[in-house]
């Protein structure tokens, strides 16, 4: 133990300290003092750094291995030649397409669906088809799939949040299913309902949205050859986080229209009340056509980031499908019917 002289530890430095020197009465062991300070320094830095990490860091999910093969495509391989509805743009890698998803039934974070998709049981699975149809029925997913030859469709997918992907879906045209059900003369809209089961969908234990998730299309939109029912992705069975076992893919509309994990398809006379248009009617309309000229109230829709790119690209009207679908909206004010 030594008694510290006032200028101890400062002998080799100019004294630029404006305050009076400390009282010399502190009894200090310099070595122990140093160790104590070093420990406090380390502990404080680690605690603060760790706390900030806990509050702010959300690492991306690691993509899981693919479910069983479905068809004869290897990963990332896309069937050539391209069909009339295919884009030739580079396909989003499977790992990214299956680890960055909006699927609030699992949680609001993009990594939640991939992390929690294991709790979704996709067999047995039935789809109820009812409403304004002559042949209402409840059908097993495997039976439903067997009704149609499966096709590849390489579609762009534009999320309302301003990012996009290129998805090689596997499935059948929605029109084929609707025609098979024989709509009545009253059918004007198609309403889709997703599974509602908090045991399988942990996100449904919170009221972040009005469950079940409901989406809809005008009948002419639903009968358009681009409107597609997907059961697979990149030649494999659709993973849970991408909407297994049956999802919609409407490539000229924002991603939230393409409802996942469908259990019911109802033909209706009235326009269905859809989930996002209930949650925020001024932000998400029923039509939700991709439109760079109509900004979201809180951000511009003029550009998007294609996942995998560092820079943004211009968003195209109807997500680049204007030639095929613009006719559906002749005479409609797209600013009013957003």
């Amino acid at each position, binding site marked *: 133990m030594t008694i510290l002289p006032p200028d101890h530890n400062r002998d080799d430095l100019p004294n630029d300290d404006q305050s009076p020197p400390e009282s010399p009465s502190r009894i200090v062991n310099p070595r122990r003092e140093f160790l104590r300070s070093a420990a406090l320094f*380390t502990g404080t830095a680690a605690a603060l*750094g760790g706390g*900030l990490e806990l509050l702010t860091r959300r690492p991306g999910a690691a993509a899981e291995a693919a479910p069983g093969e479905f068809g004869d495509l290897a990963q990332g391989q896309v069937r050539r030649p391209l069909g009339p509805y295919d884009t030739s743009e580079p396909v989003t890698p499977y790992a990214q397409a299956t680890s960055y998803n909006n699927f609030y039934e699992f949680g609001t974070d993009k990594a939640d669906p991939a992390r929690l998709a294991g709790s979704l049981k996709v067999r047995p699975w039935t789809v109820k088809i009812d409403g304004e149809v002559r042949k209402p029925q409840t059908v097993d997913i495997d039976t439903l799939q067997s009704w149609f030859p499966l096709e590849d469709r390489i579609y762009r997918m534009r999320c309302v949040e301003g990012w996009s992907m290129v998805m090689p879906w596997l499935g059948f045209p929605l029109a084929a299913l609707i025609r098979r059900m024989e709509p009545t003369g009253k059918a004007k809209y198609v309403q889709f309902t997703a599974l509602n089961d908090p045991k399988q969908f942990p996100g449904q234990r919170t009221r972040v949205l009005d469950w079940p998730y409901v989406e809809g299309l005008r009948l002419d939109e639903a009968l358009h050859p681009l409107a597609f029912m997907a059961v697979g992705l990149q030649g494999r069975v659709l993973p849970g986080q991408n909407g297994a076992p049956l999802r919609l893919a409407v490539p000229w509309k924002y991603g939230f229209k393409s409802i996942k994990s469908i259990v019911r398809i109802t033909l209706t006379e009235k326009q269905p009340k859809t989930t996002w248009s209930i949650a925020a009617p001024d932000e998400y309309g029923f039509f939700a056509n991709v439109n760079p000229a109509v900004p979201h109230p809180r951000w511009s829709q003029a550009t998007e980031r294609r996942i995998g790119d560092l820079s943004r690209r211009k968003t195209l009207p109807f997500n680049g499908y204007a030639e095929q679908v613009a006719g559906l909206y002749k005479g409609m004010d797209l600013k009013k019917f957003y």
Partner: protein
Amino acid sequence: MSEPSTTPARRTSSKRITSKPLGWLVPAVTLGSALPLAVLIWDAYTGALGANPVQRAELQTGLLCLVLLILSLATTPLRLVTARLGVAGGKGWTWPARIRKSLGLLAFGYGVLHFLIYLFDQGFTLSTVAEDVVKRPFVTAGFTALLLMVPLALTSTPRSVKRLGFARWTRLHQLAYGAVSLGALHYWWGVKQDHTPPLIAALVIAGLFALRLLGRKKARRSGVSG
């Protein structure tokens, strides 16, 4: 934590961390606050930021800015509350005041980084950015919050306190209240649907303002406000 009385605003220029009481505090806070940035860079390098790394980095730096700003604004209420509880003979803890500046400057640093990532995200297209700032309340709020922090960062030195005079300097630095409130609003508006995290931030900020007002009303006039 025992705290020998020291006069505030001491220059720590080139002293070793053991040469004065709590000399380790500011360097520890600085290092701790910089750690998430190091991890973020590492995450970016190893691809752990997921499929949309730019957005992830943008979100995290913005959140770090808000959290550090809240922490820097928690220092005065902490002193007031501990004073009310009769800690250190009614003076309360003095150590929170010593890290306030570092926390504020670190918050500003993350805010600038957050803005730079946003600029990068927009491809440095200044016309787009200007339109965003003017037309979209969500961006207006965040941008204004950052602007409010600029004079605070520029006048964070003891010399500025001397130059402006303590009363004026204090009034100027009350802009931090506006910055943190706008930051929380920006966070609220930026969320698509799940408003729980921004709500928690807003409640914490409101709680700190309440403590400040209560502490001010009841504290003896000590000539120090924050």
